[in-house]
């Protein structure tokens, strides 16, 4: 309880220590999470994804400057990949956010993916919760530089930004399932480069294939040169417009449910995983014996382990 009290008062060190302990599954911190959770739900969550080098962190640096002018308190959770070989990681997103390096009201936290699939890390939501409890108004979640299929960032975000750059493919890439379906806002960064107009047209063509329904959000396409802060004022405005839309249409409720669902599923999976690792080996050994002897099948054995009745 002690750390949480300090977090609620805005203590940066306490928040950082709590985040770290939660990430490492320290039992005392996990116990504090129950109380942390009661103090969350206020922050607005913006997710950003895109290929490595597309400019996600640079866009965030520019956006943070803009939102800080409005005196909003900002949290950033930036995820980079863990090495499958050594288990180590280079967390370099912070490097692009130097202008906020000395701002007390901007809390940037780098996380390593630690093997989590989906472009985030297991600790992402707990980190968001601590920053939320600390009183941050907007929390940006920057996913691992991603390909096409890592879409968890959009499942936890209220506003999802997909960052593209010219020169990475033709219009067929625009039609593919996955990340391209998840954006509330498309950002074409490095827009000074050749091909950005073609990319915009391909995107527009892709979006026009979805018939516009009343009371739905039409994804925006914005061109930016984030390193020069070009186009990011407009991006900040569109983020706020999307927020207003979610609130006025009550779709924000849907975002919250989607986020809760992802967290619940992840919690169930990790609890089961933990259960499996710590449960008495006897049952597992017996079930493996049965499988080898074809006395049962994997699915029925699994149901026995988690103590569920067999499905009819």
């Amino acid at each position: 309880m002690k750390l949480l009290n300090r977090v609620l008062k805005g203590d940066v060190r306490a928040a950082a220590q709590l985040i770290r302990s939660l990430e490492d599954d320290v039992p005392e911190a996990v116990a504090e999470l129950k109380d942390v959770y009661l103090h969350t739900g206020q922050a607005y969550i913006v997710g950003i994804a895109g290929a490595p080098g597309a400019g996600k962190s640079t866009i965030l640096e520019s956006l943070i400057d803009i939102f800080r002018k409005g005196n909003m308190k900002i949290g950033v959770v930036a995820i980079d990949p863990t090495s499958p070989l050594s288990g180590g990681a280079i967390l370099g997103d912070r490097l692009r956010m130097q202008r906020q390096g000395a701002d007390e009201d901007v809390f940037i936290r780098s996380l390593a993916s630690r093997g989590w699939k989906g472009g985030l890390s297991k600790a992402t939501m707990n980190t968001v919760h601590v920053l939320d409890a600390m009183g941050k108004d907007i929390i940006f979640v920057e996913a691992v530089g991603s390909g096409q299929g890592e879409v968890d960032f959009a499942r936890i975000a209220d506003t999802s930004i997909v960052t593209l750059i010219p020169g990475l493919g033709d219009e067929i890439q625009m039609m593919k399932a996955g990340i391209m379906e998840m954006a509330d806002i498309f950002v074409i960064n490095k827009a000074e480069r050749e091909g950005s107009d073609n990319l915009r047209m391909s995107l527009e063509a892709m979006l026009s294939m979805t018939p516009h329904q009343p009371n739905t959000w039409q994804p925006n396409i914005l061109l930016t040169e984030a390193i020069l802060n070009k186009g990011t004022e407009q991006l900040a405005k569109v983020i706020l417009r999307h927020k207003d839309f979610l609130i006025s249409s009550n779709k924000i409720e849907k975002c919250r449910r989607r986020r809760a669902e992802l967290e619940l599923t992840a919690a169930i999976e990790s609890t089961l995983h933990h259960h499996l690792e710590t449960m008495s080996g006897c049952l597992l050994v017996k079930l493996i014996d049965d499988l080898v002897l074809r006395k049962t099948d994997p699915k029925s054995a699994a149901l026995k382990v988690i103590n569920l009745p067999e499905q009819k």
Partner: protein
Amino acid sequence: MNLERKARVLIAKPGLDGHDRGVKIIARAYRDAGFEVIYTGVHQTPEQIVNAAIQEDVDLVGLSCLSGAHLYLFSEVMRQLRERGADDITVIGGGIIPKEDVPKLREAGMKEVFLPGTSLAQIITWTRENIKLK
């Protein structure tokens, strides 16, 4: 339950010094040794480094300086860490540093200073033996 804590280190270059080949090699060596490395790059102010060390809750800060300003810059990082109550974080340094400056840097609170010629393995081994995982 993960009872083994992951070591986190911050690698930074304070001051007006663009020679970052060495510091990148160090960052990479830590990565390959299984550490989570927050790399903040060149031209950092002591304040930025201290803020990052606190927000990232690292076990170790590694400072590199090849410009000759190590006495002022490293000591300033140490002073600000103390001021913020974060001087439990282990700080080491390296770069083009004359031997006679090492005692002064230790006096400022740095745990170790690695001079030219140090092997990567020495630094990693030292780190494993000397940081306390909280």
